[in-house]
């Protein structure tokens, strides 16, 4: 009975990903007969400055977004972790953007950043500021990465929030009562009771955020196409460009192999660090 699922899953996910290892060793262009060229693609990759900067941008994106989502998501979860209609509605509203298509989110934020519509200058005017450095967020090399990061952070903040809320629910109230008897209230309670007990939850939230953001493609492609002048190119937009704009399928497959190995390495490291911290705490 498991056969149909295996056919679909292996045929259209596992097998293609594995087959990428083979294509990485060829000079396939998708049309003519591909030749086996050994490790040539990887050698070229080692000296490819564009790919190196794409890796660096991907790391920047992931660092900004993962930190912002987790700090923000945890903060909002702590703020909204109480019973009552207001908090219920607040949680629902903050989660809603998670369900929007990345194309919708990219369009809204493209509008916010649009130099012609001028939403940002008007917003600054409301609080009495005049900021000209943000007139064209997506068109300037210095602001494009933070600008796209803000959109991604906003969209998935609610997802990280519900993960932390689920974690907060697992903390027994007796612990808070015991801590109160010991005089731990407010920040002390947060520091010595809540945060340590949330460590497993934080590990999960970090893993999810890392998986999602190290493979960032949609929002970048939609909002800046990796520009201006490659300033927001990520590894995924680079792979897409090699494959579907330059027809260098073999080279794109080699990039994908490196990226997949890299993502797995980062995630396994993160999980190992958290597991060790958890053991150390006991």
């Amino acid at each position, binding site marked *: 009975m498991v056969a149909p*699922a295996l056919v*679909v899953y292996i045929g259209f996910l*596992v097998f293609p990903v594995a087959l990428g290892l083979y294509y990485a060793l060829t000079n396939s262009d998708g049309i003519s007969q591909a030749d086996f060229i050994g490790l040539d693609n990887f050698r070229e990759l080692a000296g490819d400055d564009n790919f190196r900067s794409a890796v660096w941008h991907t790391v920047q994106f992931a660092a900004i977004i993962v930190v912002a989502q987790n700090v923000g998501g945890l903060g909002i979860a702590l703020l909204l972790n109480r019973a009552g209609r*207001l908090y219920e509605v607040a949680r629902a509203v903050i*989660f809603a953007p998670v369900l929007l298509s990345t194309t919708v989110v990219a369009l809204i934020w493209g509008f916010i950043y649009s130099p012609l519509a001028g939403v940002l200058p008007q917003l600054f005017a409301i609080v009495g500021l005049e900021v000209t450095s943000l007139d064209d967020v997506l068109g300037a090399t210095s602001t494009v990465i933070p600008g796209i990061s803000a959109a991604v952070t906003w969209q998935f903040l609610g997802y990280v929030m*519900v993960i932390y809320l689920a974690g907060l629910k697992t903390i027994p109230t007796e612990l808070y009562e015991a801590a109160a008897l010991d005089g731990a209230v407010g920040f002390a309670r947060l520091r010595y009771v809540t945060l340590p007990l949330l460590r497993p939850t934080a590990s999960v939230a970090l893993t999810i955020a890392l998986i999602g953001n*190290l493979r960032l493609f949609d929002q970048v492609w939609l909002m800046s196409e990796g520009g201006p002048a490659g300033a927001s190119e990520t590894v995924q937009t680079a792979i*897409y460009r090699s494959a579907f704009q330059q027809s260098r399928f073999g080279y794109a497959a080699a990039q994908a192999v490196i990226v997949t190995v890299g993502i797995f390495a980062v995630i396994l490291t993160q999980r190992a660090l958290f597991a060790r911290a958890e053991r150390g705490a006991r």
Partner: protein
Amino acid sequence: MTGVDGARRPTARRAHTVLYPLAVCLVVVLLSFPTLLMLLGSLQDQTAIYVDPLGLPDVVQWVNYQRAWDLGGLPTRFRNSVISAVGSVALSTTTGLAAAYVCARSRAHRAAAFLSAFFALGLVIPIQSGIVPLFLEMRWLGLNGTLAPLILVNAALQLPLTILLLTAAIKGIPTEIEDAASVDGAGSLRILVSVVTPLVRPALITAVILALVTVWNDYFLALVFASSTDLQTLPLGLSSFRQTFSTDWPGALAYSVIVAAPVLLLYVLLQRRITDGMVAGALK
């Protein structure tokens, strides 16, 4: 609240009961601003939006929706989105339910555990890693130029979460009911369909909704496999509308509302199911 709070001075208490909800409201307003801006802009006049992008429209311009619908080729894209979402979710749910039954009930425990882990791997594999071979595979199968690649690849991508949710649900029901049916001579497919499936209906609905939302919103696969005009799904239609009519922000924002509306409607109806399902998928 603990007794310590009660010992605070009355002014501090009042500050807490008034300022705290106010802070919550402020956070909600700030975070819903982009969504509100989308709704507002979708009703704004085409020129006024450049003068006063944050202002309320003098006259509500429903005509923006009309323009998005006509110029954005919405009927075709709506159809393509529905076909690929329904097709892939039907495929992933039926095959996933059968696989989950095996994962949950197989007497070969180690094989079942391996199978579960093998499917769970799909939650971590970045699909972009396999996109080049997938594209060539679809061409080899003669499926490029149809909606079949979207249906098949999306189904494969949805299987891990579907199987994870359904395996957990099936494990939660007592085996006695199935044993009784089996004594009565029912085969395992029969038991799955008429005994197990009704009992896991809530989890089944959650799995279907989560998969539908994900496929409905997909941009990357559609970009690779459905970029020609007659195959485009709604997200692609939106981005090409934006490129073609680059000065028509109200039309593009109205288009966004149309793309988002079905999903947000589902969310209003089944909010708990969606958030709980996504948390369950994350924590396992």
